[in-house]
């Protein structure tokens, strides 16, 4: 045998580290070269800002902060990761921005922690990170620090994202849940139940196709319009899990007041209403991710309503109820046919009804 019959030698014999993976592998969480690679290729191109690029174990909150500061944190899990109207990335930014904004403060920055499941496609992660960046840009709130961990396949549902954030409220006090006053008006910034139903139908388990889009959106700019107009807002809260009914119950209890809603004033998208009827859900208990409840003196209600209705995320804002001293801790609904019923808190999991 001549030397020309041997195949060319493919040295070196040891396998070289391979860093062009299409999916997340455990090594992406090792803290080593692959972790760095993931940060450089996926996160930094999207989240480019000086605090993050500095590459420290901490990030400096941008600008000088005068006055009171509030913080908030939220873990985000959703199945499916992408649904009509949004995805887990947009959700994770909006969730914390909104929690901060309802304090009446100006959100300054966010941090994000990712738990990635081994096997998650890098292209999926890229789409999610891009969506976070877009939402962060829309809100005007940069993501200035982050962390990534990887867990074995089967130990997470693709990706979990936890975000935290800081907002400055300055010299005022934060708007809290215990300040609703008898006589106040209750405003909601738009249609109810869109997010919950969008996610549920996107799972494809219901055999139901409906044109329902999640309302997930950062509301800080909308809220800022209102807080710039008046400093008389008594309570502000985003009605996420448990829906408006549960959120208002919390407020009624914290403020020791009664709240009455008027069924025929409550905005619900027709497709959401139909789907809820079919599935046995009540839109008042279904999650929202782009809505805010504002409770304020009744004489300001119409102007605030008008401000909201001129904003893209507030077009369907309505005055849906009022606060009274009677029946403290309880929320009532005046039904459209003239009856009254108690709206209790959501108890347990939202389960569909038979028949």
């Amino acid at each position, binding site marked *: 045998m001549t030397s020309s019959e041997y195949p060319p030698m493919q040295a070196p014999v040891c396998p070289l580290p391979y860093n062009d993976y299409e999916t997340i592998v455990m090594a992406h969480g090792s803290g080593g070269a692959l972790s760095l690679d993931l940060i450089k290729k996926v996160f930094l191109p999207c989240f480019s800002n000086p605090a993050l690029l500095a590459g420290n174990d901490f990030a400096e909150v941008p600008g000088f902060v005068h006055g009171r500061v509030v913080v908030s944190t939220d873990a985000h899990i959703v199945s499916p990761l992408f649904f009509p109207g949004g995805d887990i990335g947009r959700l994770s930014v909006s969730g914390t921005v909104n929690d901060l904004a309802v304090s009446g403060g100006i959100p300054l920055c966010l941090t994000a922690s990712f738990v990635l499941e081994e096997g998650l496609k890098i292209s999926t992660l890229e789409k999610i990170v891009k969506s976070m960046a877009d939402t962060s840009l829309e809100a005007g709130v940069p993501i200035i620090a982050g962390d990534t961990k990887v867990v074995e396949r089967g130990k997470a549902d693709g990706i979990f994202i936890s975000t935290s954030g800081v907002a400055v409220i300055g010299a005022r006090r934060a708007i809290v849940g215990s300040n609703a006053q008898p006589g106040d008006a209750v405003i909601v910034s738009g249609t109810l139940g869109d997010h919950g139903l969008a996610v549920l139908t996107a799972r494809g388990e219901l*055999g139901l196709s409906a044109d329902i889009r999640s309302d997930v959106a950062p509301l800080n700019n909308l809220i800022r319009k209102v807080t710039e107009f008046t400093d008389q807002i008594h309570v502000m809260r985003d009605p996420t899990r448990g829906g408006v009914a549960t959120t208002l119950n919390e407020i009624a209890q914290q403020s020791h007041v009664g709240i009455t809603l008027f069924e*025929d004033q409550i905005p619900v998208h027709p497709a959401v209403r139909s789907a809820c009827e079919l599935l*046995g859900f009540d839109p008042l208990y279904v999650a929202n991710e782009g809505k805010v409840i504002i409770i304020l003196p009744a004489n300001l209600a119409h102007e605030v309503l008008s401000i909201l209705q001129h904003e893209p995320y507030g077009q369907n804002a309505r005055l849906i109820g009022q606060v009274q001293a009677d029946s403290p801790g309880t929320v009532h609904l005046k039904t459209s046919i003239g009856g009254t019923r108690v709206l*209790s808190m959501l*108890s*347990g*999991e939202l389960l*569909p009804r038979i028949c």
Partner: protein
Amino acid sequence: MRYQDEFRDAELVRKLAARIQETAQHPWVIMEVCGGQTHSIMQHGIDQLLPETIELVHGPGCPVCVTPLELIDKALAIAALPNVVFCSFGDMLRVPGSSTDLLKLRSQGAQVKIVYSPLDAVRIAQENPHLQVVFFAIGFETTAPVNASAVLYAQKLGLQNFSLLVSQVTVPAAMHAILGSPHNRVQGFLAAGHVCTIMGYHQYHAISQKYHVPIVVTGFEPLDILQGIFLAAAQLERGSSLVENAYPRLVSEQGNIPAQKMIDAVFEPCDRNWRGIGMIPASGLKLREEYEFFNAENRFDVSSISTRESDICISGLILQGLRKPPQCAAYGTLCTPQHPLGATMVSSEGTCAAYYRYTSKEG
């Protein structure tokens, strides 16, 4: 929304309520049979629009509520087995058995799935040939046709890994049991519109004649329910006991005959226990012998399970209209939607849950 808003028209509701007020000069006790109607009455506050002369009592028409504890324990035993996917309608998941419930089992690793149709369970069986898929087939005549069709479809597919845990019950038998009881207070019935959509209402003539009660086939929207009450009250005032149809947009005298044939092909009548009420002869459906292969009670060894109902819970009296939830010592204290003692507190269609959700907890 079409076919809904028209039947929630506030002005028409007010007019109809006024007519009921004029008509009902004497005190009358009327039972709505169906849990869906109870739910609607509470959701819209329809009872508040009625004159004092009309007392509504809430009947045993919630399939979740009347499923006996013993069968729930059997369901839990099957669901806890490895290699079983246990499929159920959503509101059955929270119903407590003797020691646990399906939601808790799920958290401990059991494969419990919420489905909207038994055909989804058939599909799961098709996709997972190595797993046993069991569907908890509860319900009245409304769910019976689709449950029957699931069996027929599974048979057609030759599925060896699909079975039903059957707790089908029938409305007329329950009406007989209520009216035949020496404690009966019910003077008129709103028959369940959706059950009648399937079964028609021809079988109610015999009941109305035997017990001299008016029976009005009634729908679920506020105007439907008020119309049913109005017709029942008018009959009671003039001393008649006829079967009337106040839900003609869906219900015919003979009902949905192809659906009835499908029920008949797969199921046959049997005696059944009703939670809190006890055994009612010929009040249920079981799989016919030729479909016994699909009977989960045979496929899994659960015959040794036998359970007594709770001593404190008065759900049986409530289901028969003999008590109202606030008359129960445990209501709102020991028994709440978070910690239900009996199934009437568990299901959103259950009388106690409907009371708890929609009226002041002090009763």
